[in-house]
């Protein structure tokens, strides 16, 4: 893998653990849906009712929004803004997960920002453990490194049409 890329991968077990944790969080807070996004704007997973939301675009814009706010924080002498809140009929709460991923929660008047924020702390701790597991494995020769090993011919074929 190249020097600059986000080199990591996760297994079906990681995925189930993340999904289960996020589902529990959605039920506890009565939120509509949650997206887990990596810092480069790629969608890791979506849980809940995301019908009608272009999740790929949403993930990209969230990461950009978060990065821009991160820089704004630095300009006013803060280390970072750990969370962002956009208020409307549907509201969005965005929080940092171990400085690797971003958790985005979409909710409406069926719950309150207070409850989302309250439950968020425990959820972030749980996700941080999972993130650490994924990234520690990534550094020790993740499956990511091997998936395309020897696939040169297949890659050539992909671009020959």
């Amino acid at each position, binding site marked *: 893998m190249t020097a600059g890329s*986000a080199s990591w991968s996760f297994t079906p077990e990681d995925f189930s653990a993340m999904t289960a944790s996020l589902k529990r969080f959605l039920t506890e807070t009565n939120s509509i849906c949650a997206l887990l996004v990596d810092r480069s704007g790629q969608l890791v997973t979506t849980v809940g009712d995301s019908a009608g939301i272009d999740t790929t675009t949403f993930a*990209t814009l969230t990461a950009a929004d978060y990065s821009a706010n991160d820089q704004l924080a630095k300009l006013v002498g803060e280390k970072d803004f750990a969370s962002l809140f956009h208020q409307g009929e549907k509201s969005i709460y965005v929080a940092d997960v171990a400085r690797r991923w971003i958790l985005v929660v979409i909710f409406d008047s069926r719950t309150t920002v207070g409850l989302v924020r309250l439950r968020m702390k425990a959820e972030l701790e749980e996700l941080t453990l999972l993130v650490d597991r994924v990234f520690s494995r990534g550094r020790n020769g993740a*499956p990511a490194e091997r998936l395309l090993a020897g*696939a040169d011919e*297949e890659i050539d074929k992909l671009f020959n049409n």
Partner: protein
Amino acid sequence: MINYASREINCKIVYYGPGLGGKTTNLEHIYGKVKPETRGKLISLATETERTLFFDFLPVDLGTIRGFKTRFHLYTVPGQVYYNASRKLILKNVDGIVFVGDSQAGRMEANLESMQNLYDNMSEYGYDLTKMPFVIQYNKRDLPNAGPVPELQEALNPGWEVEDATKFRVAPDPYHAGENLVDQLPGGEWVERAPYFEAVAIKGDGVFDTLKAVSKLVLKALA
């Protein structure tokens, strides 16, 4: 990023280069040509005068490999010098770079400034441009004031010294007969250059050649 749950390989490619060089035009052409089912929306965060303010974004699927969908997220950066802070943000976690140079003779200084800015921003993240998928596109080849390619190559793609002795062998440029990507200089020093493409992005010439080349390099970096 490999997602085993959704069986996707996600890669981030950034189109870099001076203002008004044709980065957004590259994405617009790709958006217009690929089948709607293999691409997402083209998102542009632009000013009212259509200058890129933050970035353009287009997700495209380029096919399946080993049962995994290859999904490329294409981004452009704002080319104007003023927007360096936002430009740098887009480079975070990039997998491949396309430098879109403006072939017009009068834009050489802007090209050089942007290339230097690319190297600087990458190194601030600790990324080494010479060790990652990187291609150069010379755009606007149809304009009467377009400079000759060898001149552009000399200024923008002079090559970097190869340090790895296992790469000390001539590597022909697959896209230009008779030219080499890795070559030995008369002084004995080995240099490597980025693959380059000539383009007229507004008509679509060279746009897909550039995209295919950088995507292939990105996937090969995983192989």
